[in-house]
Structure formats: structure tokens, C-alpha cells
């Protein structure tokens, strides 16, 4: 396994130490750069502000990144197979509106569970349609999901003719507010559990490893007997479901749903995945890397707020970070 893999490369040194080092490097394989960036960022913010390194603030950061984090998991899968999904922001809004429409007393009033399930199904279908456009119609993923981005946004607006739906049951909104065991809200817990499940899936399941093969070379994967088309459909469908889930989490945080929500989130999500070391040409990336990418964006926003930097300057800084992260990554790959 990874331990022996790495250990055989290390020629000298005490075995235990070598094994531990190998384990650590295997866990963060290819994500060392972003990880160092995150640590430096946290160090800098700890030194320049009194408030950054407090339990309360760290929990805040986690709360703030849940929506982005859940979407980024799905996006990681899509980017791994060499695709891209521009529709996640719109699908998030559509799922949230469907949930509100089905569950809210002013509309269908069928209850929250029915609303949540319908929302996830609709989001999954959106993803599946994107997938089919890619695999059957042979549209480039960029175009297929660009189309879905427009369609889903339109549908989200059609449901209530553009107006928002406000007010959900207390138990629902408290999912993102009440911190169980003193620190963990249900939504943050959900994000962490999903990240762990998908990390295990990608690392240790045959299907997960197949996604890396598809991203590395779809033709090699196909000739090796991997069902490339059906896996591609599944990946887009899962990405859709996770975007829908992110919409539900956002609804819980805001106690309302609106058709304009999630606007531009697709770009934040792609940025997080790419900062985490994934390659847009596919085959390279990991959930660990994406988690670091999500945290870098979250910590950066939080820290710049604490420092009182204006949101406009924040946009500039985040743009620079994206360019820097990918540039160092490219440079590192070239010099290897």
C-alpha cells in the first residue's frame, strides 16, 4: 500500500520514520504546495490579527465554506475525468427553489423531507442531462454545462416568477446554526463526512481509480474495458446532486431561497479545485487537495475581512492567488 510504496523509495533512515513520512506524503500527494500555502496564510493571519486564531473564528470559517466545500467535492470528480461543470451555481439555485416550492406552506406544502428529496432528484437529473449531452451528443463539457447553467437558472426563476421564498421550520435552519458537541453544526459535519467518503472512494475504490484513468486518457480507459460513458454520466449526476445539496445547506443558513442565489459559484468552485492541485486536463487531483483549496479561499476571505480589506480588493487578491497557485504548480511539474 501507500506506506510500502513510499518507503521503498526512501533508501536511508530509520524504518518507522521513513514509513511515517511516506504515509504523510502519500496522504497529501501532489498537494504539498497548496498545503504549505494554507499554513503560511494561517500563520500570517495569526500574527497580524488577534481574532483569526480563535476557536470561534475557525468555526466561522468552516461554516462559511460549507456550501463551497460540498460543491467542490462534485467538481473535483468532474475535473478529474477531464470535464468541467459550469452549471453548479444555477443547479444550486434550482434545487433550493424546488425545495422551497415543494415544502413551503405558501406553495405545495408537502413537508421538508419531500422538498429535500425532490430538490436532490431534480439536481441529479440536471447533472445527468449534462452528462448525456457530453457522452451521447458529444458536446464539449464546457458547452453542455454552459447550456445547463442557463436552463437551470431559467427554471429556478420560473418556479416563483423570480421571487424568493422565506421562512423554513426551526429544526431545518438550526442544522447550520446549532453546534453539537460545542463545535460541529450538522451542515459542517455533512461536508466533512462527504469529503471523507469521497476521498476514500477516489483512493481505494476500483470505480474511483477508474476516474483517474478516464481523466488520464479516456481512450486508454475505454480500451481497458472501463465503462467510460456510464461513469461520465454518473459523475455529472453526482456533481448535480452535490450542487443541490449545497443549495439546501445555503437555504438552511439563510432561512430563505432565491432564484438568484449561487450566481458565480461555479467559478469559485473551479478555483478551489484548481488551487488544490487538480489539472483541468484531467487525471490529476484529489479530495485532500480540494479541501485545502476550499480552505485557502475561505481563510483568505475571512482573514481579509478581519483585516478590514474591502471586498473589491478581496476579489483582486483571490484572483492573484489563483494565478500564483496554478503557476507554481505548473512550474513544479515542469522542473520535476
Amino acid at each position, binding site marked *: 500500500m501507500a506506506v510500502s510504496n513510499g518507503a*521503498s523509495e526512501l533508501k536511508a533512515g530509520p524504518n518507522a520514520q521513513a514509513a511515517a513520512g511516506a504515509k504523510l506524503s502519500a496522504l497529501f500527494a501532489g498537494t504539498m504546495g497548496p498545503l504549505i500555502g494554507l499554513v503560511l496564510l494561517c500563520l500570517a493571519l495569526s500574527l497580524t490579527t488577534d481574532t483569526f486564531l480563535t476557536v470561534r473564528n475557525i468555526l466561522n470559517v468552516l461554516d462559511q465554506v460549507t456550501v463551497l466545500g460540498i460543491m467542490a467535492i462534485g467538481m473535483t470528480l468532474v475535473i478529474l475525468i477531464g470535464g468541467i461543470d459550469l452549471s453548479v451555481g444555477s443547479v444550486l439555485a434550482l434545487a433550493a427553489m424546488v425545495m422551497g416550492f415543494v415544502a413551503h406552506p405558501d406553495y405545495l406544502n408537502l413537508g421538508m423531507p419531500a422538498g429535500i428529496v425532490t430538490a436532490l432528484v431534480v439536481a441529479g437529473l440536471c447533472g445527468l442531462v449534462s452528462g448525456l449531452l457530453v457522452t451521447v451528443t458529444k458536446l464539449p463539457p464546457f458547452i453542455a454545462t454552459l447550456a445547463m447553467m442557463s436552463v437551470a437558472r431559467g427554471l429556478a426563476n420560473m418556479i416563483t416568477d423570480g421571487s424568493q421564498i422565506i421562512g423554513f421550520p426551526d429544526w431545518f435552519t438550526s442544522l447550520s446554526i446549532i453546534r453539537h458537541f460545542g463545535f460541529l453544526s450538522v451542515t459542517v459535519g455533512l461536508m466533512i463526512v462527504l469529503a471523507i467518503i469521497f476521498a476514500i472512494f477516489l483512493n481505494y475504490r*476500483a*470505480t474511483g*481509480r477508474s476516474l*483517474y484513468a478516464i481523466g488520464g486518457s479516456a481512450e486508454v480507459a475505454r480500451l481497458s474495458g472501463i465503462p467510460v460513458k456510464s461513469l461520465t454520466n454518473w459523475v455529472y449526476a453526482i456533481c448535480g446532486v452535490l450542487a443541490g445539496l449545497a443549495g439546501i445547506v445555503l437555504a438552511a443558513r439563510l432561512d430563505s431561497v432565491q432564484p438568484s442565489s449561487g450566481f458565480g459559484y461555479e467559478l469559485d468552485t473551479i478555483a478551489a479545485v484548481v488551487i488544490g492541485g487538480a489539472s483541468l486536463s484531467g487525471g490529476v487531483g484529489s479530495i485532500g487537495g480540494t479541501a485545502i483549496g476550499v480552505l485557502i479561499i475561505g481563510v483568505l476571505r475571512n482573514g481579509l475581512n478581519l483585516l478590514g480589506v474591502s471586498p473589491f480588493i478581496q476579489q483582486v487578491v483571490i484572483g492573484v492567488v489563483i494565478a500564483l497557485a496554478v503557476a507554481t504548480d505548473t512550474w513544479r511539474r515542469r522542473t520535476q
Partner: protein
Amino acid sequence: MSLDPSHTQTPHLGLFVSGLCKSYGPVQVLADASFEVRPGEVVALLGENGAGKSTVSNIIAGSTKPDAGSITWRGKPYSPASPAEAIDAGVGMIHQELKLLPDLSVAENVYVGRLLMRGGRIDRAAMNAQASAQLRRLGLDVSPERKVRTLRIAAQQQVEIAKALTLNAELLIFDEPTAALGSEETELLFKQIRKLKAEGMSFIYISHRLDEIAEIADRVVVMRDGRIVARHERADIPVRTVVEQMVGRSVERMFPPLSEPGSETLLEVENLSSPERSFQNVSFSVRTGEILGIAGLIGAGRTELVRAIAGADPISSGSVRVAGKPVHLNGPAAAIKAGVVLVPEDRKAQGVVLDQTIGENLAIGNFDHVAPNGWVFPRAVQKFAEAGIGRLGVKGRPNQAISKLSGGNQQKVIIAKWISRPPKVFILDEPTRGIDVGARAAIYDVIADLARSGMAVVVVSSDLEEVLGLSHRVLVLSRGRQRGILDRSEASNVAVMELATS
């Protein structure tokens, strides 16, 4: 042959290359390379991959700078800093991968970067007229307004040559010009080279096809490990001599002895046809332990045929049976399950995932084996990979990037990927393409071993020697039709070529 430096003493206005050196980091790819090209002659540059041929050509064509050494061209010192400077000096290079713009017209491609202008507008009439004059000079009747994408590879190559001619090139470097050409197209190219040669043009000709060197070259320069190891004043030297100079040792036994095939029929192909008619009504069978070679010219439908048998491309009619059971050809997965595996033609694009390690490449397609419950543990991958690596003698470790391996070792990894199943039918398409001459023998041994272990083996190759040396029987295709199956005893160069060109 002579290694005597006095060869550079004859005064003429051609190309003198002397003492060129080039290193990338600690690796010296070119050491003290000296040779000359006289006006109106074709010098063949031979050597294995990595021998330094490309480096020399790139230096002469201006895309690489040497660390030391000098070049004299037409009596003047010549050190081009860019391909543009080389072109200005009359030196052009036709790359193996053609550098054309597929969506522009023939004329636009010929004049790209220096479109003819009149009164501030592009003068299409003049451009078309001049481009088609150059094409006619090459004996090519193609409308200058046609999109390059719609031309066959051979015609596209002619466009590149025409482009060089309008640039007043006097020295042309050809890098593997015939790799993608059929025999008729090759003949046409040779005719053009002879004609231009008579007009005083010089050529440096790089090729792996040793048989065509005797036909087209005047002199031969052999390189090995960045050095020039032999210069021949004539081109009709025995292939064996050249191969030995290229690999630096004597090639005792290229092909392994073949074992007797068994009696049981493993693969039966009946009346197989493709929807695009790239092959029609092909029928053959292969027994256990038998190697069937498939020969034919480029475009005869060989690759299409074996891809269809391996489930990679759809068929329109016909059937394939493995060990008596019909195979439903609806995808590679079904074929693999039935015991038919394919080592594809294009190693880099279809055979290996270059971003991944040797172990990961071996595991792709074997997850049912490596991970019986769907759980892929690195330890299992490692163990599986070590077994495959050991069995085929791959020079590498499981966690090493596959991109760092030589072509021959990559090919072994692809073979090793399938060997553990074990498959019943092993198909190899161009198993030694792009692999050094010295490393080929190892691949041949592996193929013979596959047959010896009882598999039915099908080998497709453009290298006729290879098909003849490896196969018990040879199936010959021509324009998608099966022209015959020759027994080893009756299969000769001539017999196969007769059928292939019919």
C-alpha cells in the same frame, strides 16, 4: 565506410557540419558531430531513437542552438538563431508531424506568415496561381483553395514541400517522411526528391525504413548515442551492417524460434465487415499457440480489423467466436471478458496513461483482479505490478512514472497488463512501432512466449520483416479485402507484397 576527417576537405558550396555538441543538463545528446551534404545529393541520417538525429536536424533547421561546433552553408558561416533565419538562408525542414493549419486553404498554408498583398489586401488570385504552380512542379493536381484538412496525409506533405519550395529552400531536411505513407505515395515522394535533386537541391533524409535508404540516398551517415559512428560513401550497404552499427553490437538473432501450434481453434472470425467498409468479409481462424500475422499497406484496414475484433470499433456484420463461444462485440469490456485483448497501435494515445505510474497503468482494466471486492489497496496494486514487471522483465518499479520508461518498456507494461488474466486471444497492433531496433528483439521474445503459453496471437505490422519473422501464417489485406493467407513456408517478401498491392 570511413571515419577519416579528410572527407570534409572537398571544397563545394554545400553544407559542412563540424564538431557540433549539445547537452541537456548532464546528458550529452550530441558529441562532436561532423558531416557534409554536397549540392544535389541525399544524405541519409540513420540511428535509433535518441541517437541524436533530431538534435542535429533541429540545429541545422534553427530550432535548437548547439553548445559547440560550427556549420558552413554555401561557403559562409551559418548559425541560425531561429527557424525563420534558417528558412531565409534556404534551409527548410519537413517534420514528421506536419505543421500545417488544417482549416486554412492549401494556398494560405503555402504562404502563411507572408501572404501576398496588393493594395493593402490579400492577393488571393496571385497566391492561388503561384501555389498551384509549385504543386504542379511536384506533380500534384490539387486545388489551391481546398482546405488542408480534406487532403490525405500524403497530399498534406506535398503542401509542406511546396511551401519550402516557394521559400527557395536549397536544403530540405525530411524527418521520417514516409512513416505515414503507402508505397505508391512513397514512390511519388522519391520521384520528386530525385527531380529536385537534379535541380541542385540537397537533402538530409531521416528514416527508420532501412530498405528505402538504398533507393533514395546517395550517402549514409550512422549515428549512435549522440556520435557519428559510420559514414558510407554509397547507400546500397547491407541492412544488417547498418543495424549493427546503429545498435553497436552484432544482431545475432532478431526473431526467436517459434513453437509448434496446438490443434484446438481458439479464435474464429467469420465474414466480418465494418460499417465504414474499411474491411469487408474477412474470415480466418487462429489455433492455440499460433501466431497469425496481418500484413498490408497503410489503409488496407488492418488496424480497423483488429480493433473491431477487440470490441473497440463497431462491426456491421459477421461474427467472432472465442473457444467456440460467440463474442458480443459491443465494447472492449465484453471482448476482454471473452478473453480477447488488444495492444493498440498508438502506444502514447491508446496504450498508457502517461500521468500515472507503472503500477497504476497495470491496474487499469484489472480492477476485477486487483480489487475483487472493489477495494483497491496500494499493497495489492504493488503486488500485482511486481508480478507483471517481473514476468516481462520491465526495467522499472511499480511506483515509477510510466512516462520515464523507454518505448520498449512501456510496450512491455501494456502487454503485462493483460497477461495475468490470462487472455485466450492476444492481439498486438504495430508492437514495435517507435521502439529502438535493439529493444525489438525483447518484444519478439515476449510475443513468441505468449504463443508458447497457449494463446492465439495476432500481430499486425507495417514492417514486413517482422510479420514474416514472427508468424506461423500471414493474412494479407488490400483495400479492406482479404487477399489470402500464406503459410510460413510460402510467405516471402515478394509473395506478400504481390497480394498486398493487388
